[in-house]
């Protein structure tokens, strides 16, 4: 493997087991400069283990990780890497400003440079007016924003965000999106893990779909959908009556049933008519039917047979 110092991140054949569980199972991945790469997958897919391996908090069983050409747990890598963990990793009894100062010092900042960094991060997270508020008194959304700011205090060139919108209300989520888009505008390289399809579609240049520790698809949102479905559409049909009758019939017709909704892929909308006619002949009770373009959720279901939020 060549040591390209301009490449923010290069992962090669990464493996990590926890007991019998293959948390990361041979992942190879590259992040381009200024790119935002989304890691999309359900809980337990291996996204956080992958992120923690990049941060140097998990020692891989095999494979290599290079951050701007430096090994993942090296001092050089740490200084260029920012991490926003899934947990609210803050000191609750310190104020916002004190938290940012503390994490700045941990990264070796001091004096005016530290104060400038604190002011910049407070501004970025729109917490300047709450700078001297104790963290424990902040709302959930504010804590999330400060949690992100603390990961960027040392102006890293590569930022890893591990589900930064978990448990926040829609308004706070919107604020967080704006913060991330600002970073993107500044040309920062980002890895963003989520199990929310809309977030990945909105924020990410490319998306890696992760399941059982593997990347099962990688590309832009359009590429992923096109690769999985081509020009085909999806029909969602809600049948009433006993699932014991519905599910086998749907499977026999090449569809999948999740949450009581049958999903079929069709090449042309006219195929809906024959589908409904057949269901009537089978004695199924039709409640609702709709046609939609496939999305990442559909891709995931198509590839794994499971929903993203399973």
């Amino acid at each position, binding site marked *: 493997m060549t040591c390209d110092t301009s490449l923010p991140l290069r992962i090669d054949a990464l493996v990590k087991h926890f007991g019998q569980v293959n948390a990361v199972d041979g992942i190879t991945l590259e992040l381009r400069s200024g790119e935002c790469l989304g890691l999309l997958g359900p809980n337990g897919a291996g996204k956080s283990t992958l992120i923690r391996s990049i941060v140097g908090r998990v*020692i891989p069983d095999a494979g290599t990780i290079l951050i701007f050409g430096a090994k993942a747990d090296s001092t050089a890598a*740490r*200084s260029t890497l920012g991490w926003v963990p899934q947990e*609210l*990793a803050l*000191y609750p009894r310190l104020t916002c400003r004190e938290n940012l100062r503390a*994490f700045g010092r*941990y990264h070796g900042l001091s004096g005016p440079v530290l104060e400038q960094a604190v002011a910049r991060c407070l501004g970025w997270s729109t917490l300047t007016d709450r700078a001297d508020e104790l963290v424990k008194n902040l709302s959930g959304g504010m804590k999330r924003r400060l949690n992100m700011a603390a990961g960027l205090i040392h102006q890293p060139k590569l930022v890893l965000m591990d589900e930064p919108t978990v448990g926040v209300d829609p308004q706070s989520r919107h604020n967080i999106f704006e913060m991330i888009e600002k970073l993107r505008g500044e040309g920062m390289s980002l890895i963003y893990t989520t199990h929310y399809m809309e977030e990945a579609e909105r924020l990410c240049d490319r998306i890696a779909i992760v399941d059982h520790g593997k990347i099962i698809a990688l590309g832009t949102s359009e590429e992923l959908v096109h690769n999985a479905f081509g020009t085909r559409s999806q029909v969602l049909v809600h049948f009433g009556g006993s699932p014991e009758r519905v599910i086998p019939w749907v499977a026999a017709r090449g569809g999948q049933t999740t949450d009581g909704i049958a999903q079929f892929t069709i090449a042309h909308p006219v195929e809906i008519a024959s589908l409904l006619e057949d269901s009537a002949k089978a004695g199924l009770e039709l409640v609702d039917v709709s046609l939609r373009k496939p999305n990442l959720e559909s891709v995931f279901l198509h590839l794994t047979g499971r929903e993203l939020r399973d």
Partner: protein
Amino acid sequence: MFAIIRTAMVSLRRDRGALSLSFILPVVFFSIFAVIFGGRRDTTPKIRVLVVDEDHSRASGRLVQGLKQEGSLVVKTRPNPVNDIEQPEYTAATAETAVKEGTAPVAVIIPHGFGENPISFSPADTNRATIQLLKDSSDMIAPQMISGLLQKVAMTSMPDLMADQGSKYFDQSTGGLTREQRDRLNEGIRHLRERQESGASTSVPANEGGGIIAVKARAVVGENKNNPMVSFYAAAIGVMFLLFTASGSAGALLDEAESGTLDRVLSSRVTMTSLLLGKLTYNSLLAFSQLVVMFLWGWAVFKLDFWSHIPGFMVMGVCTSVAVASFGMLLASICRTRAQLGALSTLVILIMSSIGGSMFPRFLMPEAMQKAGLLTINAWAIDGFTKIFWRDEPISHLWPQVLVLVAIAIALFLIARRVARRWEVA
């Protein structure tokens, strides 16, 4: 109601910390107190007493011998051999130094001329020589006991002298015996003397209030102290609470591990060693501040002589603080949760405090327990503070305590660092 009982029982069963505190701790404490105060004869503490015989008379020799035969005493007439070389006998001066240094709580000095007039039935008798009892006031029991035993031994080991002295009083008050009566009395006294010197001593119960030999007690340690036990308890209670505070403060590590803050810190330039050293320093400073507050309170309220012992206090304060901080770090790194830490620290600290002398002085404990106490931070810290505030010893005398506490601090920290590897990486 049964549902509530059932739920509470299941919760208790799954909370191992609470379970151990509920059942193990009381049993452990019961056992410790039972051993200390339960009156088990084989473990009853013996009192060390230094005896200086300046008189070397037959009477003084028999008094020393009588004291040696007392089962509750360990009589030392000379220091332990050094490198197998026999040491010279104690003198009044060396015995006083030894009491000041805490070798024994009491020294008995039998002065020149004691044998000429060893016992007297009259407190006003100015001819008799007075035995000096040099005592360490921190031990309130030993001097009282020795004082009583001296009177008892005088009666049991010198019955002939008592009879002889008694006859003299009789002579003075009645005008004297006839020659025949005198001969019979002398024969009886001779018989008593022979019997005594042949070792056939009778076991006469002690008459502690007798006062037939003159004894004058003098405190050589703590004689100028305003409140003798304050310095002891300031150290004893202080160390116990320092241990609680240190383990609680070190528990912040568990909170940070749980919240993910520890992970984030370790993903920066901070290494686990520097993080633990930072926590150790902070917890040591916290412990030291606590000690300062405790001793200042002792000075302000209980007239503890704090200001003239500042250098010694600094030395012992720093060593004790670092040792307790390391102890806290170790407990925190061993435990997985705050609840575990709470249970384990309560258990360990209370046991350490009870055998280490924080709850009652170690000299009251059986010898085996006193030795076990040396495995605790409490015992070494209390001994050090006692040397400074009670015995007014110079700082150079603190080297054993300093050495042990620093060694404990280093050892516990190294173990904590080793155990903390579990937080470093998965």
